[in-house]
């Protein structure tokens, strides 16, 4: 599962549209399994566009069956799969309702089902989490994890970096149409030049800073000191000093979050 990140206007949607031959690349090429993508390959891909779109007056079940058939499924398989996904999203009783009569959240679920109905090898989802309530986010995350576990390639873009961090093994961060960071999330975090250090003591933790090397910036969050330090700083001496100074209520030494990597990459 690949998280596809970048600030607004970086070219995420453009890149995704290019995969589906909706746009012609000015340079470069799109390949799948090392082969250039042919129109027939698109039938094995699933796409959730940023601008959601379904036929408003068409019944949910018919709509998904139709999209399945467009991807080459038999009528029976398409219907089975369409109903299966609607059932999965708790919409089994809405199969015969026009899409426009569904709530916004349910329309989103149908839209996701539309990307999944033909059991694609590659899922490309443009902002799948935007506008979803926490429960819908949970369903969406489950589906994505499940698809990845089935061996499907999943690429999605999002601005909710916590979710991306939670879901993805890999991320690609783009800025101005160029990939600026790409790799395994944990490894990227490990190889970052900085670490986060948090300390909360009975005394004023900022007095202990003189025992810490490589401090790049500090700030206080209530009584908690948050410092960004070089990754190569040895903090063992600092911990000993802190313990001598008084009771330590909270201590954390972390790799930077994905948000930090993101901000750093696109700055």
């Amino acid at each position, binding site marked *: 599962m690949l998280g596809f990140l970048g600030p607004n206007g970086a070219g995420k949607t453009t890149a995704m*549209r290019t995969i*589906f*031959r*909706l*746009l*012609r690349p000015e340079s470069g090429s799109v390949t799948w399994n090392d082969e250039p993508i042919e*129109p*027939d390959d*698109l*039938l094995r*891909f699933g*796409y959730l*566009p940023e*601008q*959601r*779109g*379904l*036929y*408003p*007056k*068409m019944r949910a079940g*018919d709509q998904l069956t*139709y*999209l399945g*058939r*467009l*991807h*080459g499924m038999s009528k029976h398989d398409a219907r089975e799969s369409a109903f299966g996904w609607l059932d999965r999203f708790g919409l089994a009783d809405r199969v015969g309702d026009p899409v426009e009569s569904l709530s916004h959240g349910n329309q989103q679920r149908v839209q996701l089902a*539309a990307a999944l109905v033909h059991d694609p090898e590659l899922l490309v989802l443009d902002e799948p989490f935007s506008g979803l309530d926490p429960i819908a986010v949970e369903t969406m995350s489950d589906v994505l994890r499940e698809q990845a576990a089935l061996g499907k390639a999943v690429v999605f873009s999002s601005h909710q970096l916590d979710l991306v961090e939670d879901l993805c093994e890999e991320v690609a961060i783009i800025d101005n149409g160029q990939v600026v960071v790409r790799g395994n999330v944990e490894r990227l975090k490990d190889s970052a030049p900085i670490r986060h250090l948090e300390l909360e003591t009975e005394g004023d933790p900022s007095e202990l800073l003189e025992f810490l090397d490589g401090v790049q910036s500090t700030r206080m969050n209530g009584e908690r000191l948050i410092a960004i330090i070089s990754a190569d700083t040895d903090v063992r001496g600092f911990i000993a000093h802190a313990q001598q100074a008084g009771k330590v209520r909270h201590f954390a030494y972390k790799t930077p979050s994905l948000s930090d990597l993101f901000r750093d990459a696109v700055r």
Partner: protein
Amino acid sequence: MTGFPTLWQVALREITERIRSKAYLITTGLTVLIVLGLIVAPTLFGSDTSESSVGTVGDGNDIIIATAVDLGNANDEPDEPPSVAIETIEYNDRESAETALDDGEIDAVLVDGDEVIVQSVGGFSGNSLMSGLQRAAGTVQIQGIIEEEGQQAADIIEILTSDPLETTTLTEGDPEDGDSRTLIAYFGLLLLYLAVLLYGTWILTGVTEEKSNRVVEVLLSSIRPWQILGGKILGIGSLALLQLLGTIAIAVIALRVTGAFDLPPIEIGAVLNLLLWFVLGFVIFAVLFGAAGSLVSRTEEANTIAMPMSMAAVVGFFVSISALNDPDGVVATIFTFVPITAPFVVPVRVALQSIPAWQYVLSLVICVASIGVLTVLAGRIYAGGLLRYGGRVGLREAWRSAAE
């Protein structure tokens, strides 16, 4: 699945979704009702006999009225009700007859066989009664002159009411078929015109709707623009043909049942020829409407962009109406070779048997070729226009941004 099966899926969706929609059922029902009404109503409320009553004052009136009835009914079939019936009411003096005329009890007054009084000039039925009486009076006068020479009145009436010259034509075929062929061509012309304006608009708004509710991005992520456009045209076209043929069938049945109007014998060849040009004409316009629909994002804008096509249909319609009068003329010949007007003009010229074979074939080739070319051009504009939202997309812009 590639190519045509996908196109067929798109067409199938168009057909099932539209048949299911209330709007389609209502318009179909209304069309059938209107057609039935137009055919059945005259037989319920009207009668074939034109009845009138004429007041008479003085002598010499009866023979004119009797002659008017004879002349009016001269071409009737023996088993049909008479075309003209005139009731006669005698008045003693001119004043009482004028009063009755003013009160609407009678339609006209004949005085002494040489004067006719009517309420006022005008109205179709008044004029037909007037001209009937005038013609009868003239006949009576001629009759008087010729009777002195010993001729029979019936012979005169025979001469005056029949077409004395026998008609033949230079082209092959029974001249009696000419009426039928012209009628079919005229009817076909009207249907093509209506179909282009009505169902062309369906294609236009259908394309714009798919664009405005963004479903087109989902579609284009799996299938090709030409499959969407082609499927739409096939689906809506089949539906159009179904609705038209259904309406015509109902009209023909109603005409046969009520006998309100005599149908000329219908030639299968003429109908097939008409069908061929109907399909060609519809497809040419449908492709253009489809491409136009992809250039706008909202249905409100769709009507504006449809203008050039609607104008072209109007031009085609009027050119072919003029071709009915002058099928060999320069105008008719030129527009035979313009792909968007040919489907209107050629059937008319075929019906009037005034198109040389080479012109027919050339026109057919031009039409089929231009459908091919237009589909490629329109397909590219369609593909380029579909994903550009917000306002109208220029033709050039759509052309250049197309992905193939």
